[in-house]
């Protein structure tokens, strides 16, 4: 199904990129958790009330009283979408389009491996890197919360939120990986992946900022990732996450098929 040699090479050449992102996320994540203070929440709420639209745009309007709500609002509304998005754009591009653009794909194709097998290997690298990211943040937030605020974190729902986050990252990976498989040029590969991701984020921010544009959320796949509602105990976000994961995997599959069939200028 996959090629282990290629997999090992990709892990070796990409782990540094992943470590950088893990470090940055750890910095933000720990800051947010440490900042939690039921009383501080009140003053933050005051601040949010003074600039409701700005806070709303980043999904931080209802800060919430519990630690779980606080973490989910501040991290899962924007940061944990935007940072992984950048990582996914970069890594997807490296995994396929860059080899084609530089011409070194010729050497991968000059081995007894079907194109589908090469592409599946690369897709797996991307999926596992995203999984690392989610597990890292889950572990970090959980460990910090248990150390600083024992018993405050609603572990079950927090895990559900992280599972949903992974589903979202699978979807974003699908978009970027598909672009990477279809493009001969890294500029296009990055451009389409980043462009789509940024568009999703902007639409989300605009639709959250005011009622006038609320309807926009129905055209934005990010709406299917609803961490706040998940924490509140609603069940539809589970189906939303499922839809994200399935369509992400379908996009990856489509990219792999396109890559297997098309002419490669190498």
């Amino acid at each position, binding site marked *: 199904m996959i*090629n282990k*040699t*290629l997999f090992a*090479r990709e892990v070796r*050449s990409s782990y540094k990129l992943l470590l950088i992102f893990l470090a940055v996320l750890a910095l933000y994540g720990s800051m947010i958790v440490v900042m939690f203070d039921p009383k501080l929440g009140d003053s933050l709420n005051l601040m949010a009330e003074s600039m409701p639209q700005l806070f709303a745009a980043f999904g931080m309007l209802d800060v919430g009283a519990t630690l779980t709500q606080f973490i989910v609002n501040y991290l899962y509304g924007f940061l944990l979408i935007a940072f992984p998005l950048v990582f996914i754009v970069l890594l997807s591009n490296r995994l396929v389009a860059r080899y084609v653009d*530089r*011409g*070194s794909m*010729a*050497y*991968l*194709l*000059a*081995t*007894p*491996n*079907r*194109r589908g*097998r090469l592409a599946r290997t690369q897709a797996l690298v991307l999926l596992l890197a995203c999984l690392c990211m989610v597990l890292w943040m889950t572990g970090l937030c959980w460990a910090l919360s248990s150390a600083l605020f024992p018993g405050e974190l609603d572990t079950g729902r927090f895990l559900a939120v992280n599972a949903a986050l992974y589903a979202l990252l699978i979807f974003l990976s699908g978009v970027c990986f598909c672009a990477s498989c279809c493009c001969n040029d890294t500029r296009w590969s990055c451009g389409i992946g980043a462009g789509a991701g940024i568009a999703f984020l902007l639409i989300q921010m605009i639709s959250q900022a005011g009622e006038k544009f609320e309807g926009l959320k129905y055209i934005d796949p990010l709406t299917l990732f609803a961490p706040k509602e998940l924490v509140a105990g609603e069940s539809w976000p589970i189906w939303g996450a499922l839809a994200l994961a399935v369509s992400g995997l379908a996009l990856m599959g489509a990219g792999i098929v396109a890559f297997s069939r098309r*002419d*490669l*200028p*190498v």
Partner: protein
Amino acid sequence: MSRMIEAEKLTKDYGGGRGVFDLSFAVEKGEVMGFLGPNGAGKTTTIRQMMGFIRPDQGSVRIGGRDCFAHAAQIQRELGYLPGEPAFMEDMTGEAFLHFLAKMKGISDFGRARELMERFELDGSARIKRMSKGTKQKVAIVAAFMGGPELLILDEPTSGLDPLMQNRFIDLVLGEKQRGATILMSSHIFEEVERTCDRTVIIREGRIAAVERLEKLKKTKRKLFSVQFERPQDAAAFAASWQKGARQQGDTVQAAVTGSPDAFLKAVSAYSVRDIDLHRETLEELFLHFYGGEANDQ
């Protein structure tokens, strides 16, 4: 003998006259075939179709009876490829790359690769990013030959190599030929083709111009002599007696000689000669002469 590579009406049209059109030719097992033609004639486009990188618009190309696009992966088991412009994983060292490729190709014995690295004096410890063009070319040569494949497809294999290494390359190709490998090789260097190839396919503007045994090409190969005589009147007299396209300019006569130079030298020796220069025709000049008609024949 059975056929190793078989192209049948192979066509890939990139528009504007670029591409290859209606190519039909075959390379027999154990044969070394030169693949010649001016820049932009479509050599690399043909090779890409053999490698399964691109799909023909029409016609087909088969290796060992298998379609090159549909069965690319199986074909690669017994194929060594040297790209026209090798691009590696630049972040790796030369040796790490070769190890990586050997594993990808399922080559368990790295001994042959080591032997080749020594033969071409390749130091594989540097990062490929930092290597000179010639060194990268050596990496590409080792990569193509290290598996001891049945078939080698080589696109301008010695570009960037110095004459010493070019000679070692020719010896390597001759060794592989003896081992029984089939080789298709595009080249601009006459000596390389002359010393290694049994036959040549010549393409021009995407179409086959000729498939020839090398002896025939050799026969038409011309030597351009430039003879400087002691006295200008000798030059004039010689030019008049020799004719056959001899051109006189002051005390110097230029003449193109096909085949054996014996008669020419004997005729020249009747006069006192100050200097003599020999210019060997390049492959490109030879094509023009061979297929461009008399227009270039002055």
